[in-house]
């Protein structure tokens, strides 16, 4: 491997990571409060989950295509699309976590005179943390994979190698993109799973 290739892998990997980090931050910033808001409202909850489900079913390449005329080429479009995909796992797992709190615990909290806000912050959310981390893990790992497609709309990242590899039938370029992406996904999967286990045990 030439030094220039190694440098390129490093810089594209960092770009890829940046893309993923921004995406997950945005998705979490939207999904977490939404989950909290709709947890106690079954009607709205169904509606919100349907929306995120539908967003999830749109093929990523098509979604990029739809967003291009709206936002234009480049990183922003990729981040918007990737965030939409990341919403569902975070939202769903946060809801699962909040709704999964033992009803006896919630009943005690209420009967002891905790306000709904105190129940949310001191009981439901702390108990939902392992589940929330599980959702973040799934969202992160899938985003690392999906983000490679973002290169097709000029967002950069490891997908740049894949685009080049496909266009030029260059096996080395394909591997230069695929291997670091796979390694990154595995690393995050393991790392976040470890945190998840720690929190569940805690």
């Amino acid at each position, binding site marked *: 491997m030439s030094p220039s290739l190694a440098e390129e892998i490093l810089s594209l990997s960092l770009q890829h990571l940046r893309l993923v980090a921004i995406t997950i931050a945005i998705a979490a910033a939207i999904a977490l409060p939404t989950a909290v808001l709709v947890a106690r409202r079954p009607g709205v909850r169904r509606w919100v989950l349907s929306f995120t489900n539908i967003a999830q079913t749109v093929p990523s390449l098509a979604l990029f295509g739809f967003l291009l005329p709206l936002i234009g080429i480049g990183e922003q479009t990729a981040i918007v699309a990737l965030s939409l995909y990341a919403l569902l796992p975070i939202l769903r797992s946060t809801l699962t976590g909040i709704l999964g709190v033992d009803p*006896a*615990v919630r009943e*005690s*909290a*209420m*009967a*002891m*005179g*905790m306000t709904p806000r*105190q129940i949310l912050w001191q009981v439901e959310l702390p108990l939902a943390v392992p589940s929330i981390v599980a959702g973040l893990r799934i969202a992160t790992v899938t985003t690392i994979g999906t983000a490679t497609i973002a290169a097709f709309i000029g967002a950069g990242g490891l997908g740049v190698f894949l685009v080049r590899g496909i266009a030029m039938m260059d096996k080395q370029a394909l591997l230069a993109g695929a291997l670091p992406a796979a390694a990154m996904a595995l690393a995050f999967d393991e790392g976040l799973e470890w945190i998840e286990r720690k929190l569940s045990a805690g």
Partner: protein
Amino acid sequence: MYYENCAVPSAILEIRDVSCALGGRPVLRHINLTVEEGETVVLLGRSGSGKTTLLKTVNGLVPATSGEIRFEGRGTAQWDAVEMRRRMGYVIQDAGLFPHWTVEANIGLVPRLEKWEPARVAARVDLLLETVGLAPAEFRHRYPRQLSGGQRQRVGISRALGADPPLLLFDEPFASLDPITRYELQRQFLELRSTVRKTALFVTHDVREALLLATRIALLREGELESVATPEEFLASRTKEGQAFLACLEDDGRPD
């Protein structure tokens, strides 16, 4: 009789003509019951008799459909629900402890909510642990999953006593314990009552438990209050449901 110790018994809780329907189905019909200070009134009934629902109408977890409940002389509608609940300890089956909090944090909950000084909360927690027979140094920092069922329930009772509430509500607290642990805790309950002199409303389906713990037994059947009697009177009960419960005793005799 029990009242002899109290100069003037005053009603802590008055349940007046309370009815409750859940999902259109009547669960409680025109219940009238008064609980005086220092009493342990046991709500006895079989499953579906409405005893747990009645308990939950008292702290507002289930709203009464009609009728009035007065606590410390004030209608529950006049109370701020949160403030009122902090004056009613609540103990349920399996304790319902907060799994992510230590024993200390669980017991100190209401004092903390009431913004006590940390040192005062800590002292209170230790006192309560001792009261229910758990060594503070050993148990303070444990998590609920590190406790046996009986220990969890002791912590549950301590938590209910947290800020020294005038009324304690018990919803079948000992139902899932093994018989030996259950008996220990029933004994503890009696001991506790003679030391801290709390007023309690206690739900059970276990007639022996009712006879052991109650100063008065309120017998519920299909959402109606069939009788209110002292344990002695209850043993001479002539009502059908009373007889049915007493029949459970015949095989193994009276407790004590």
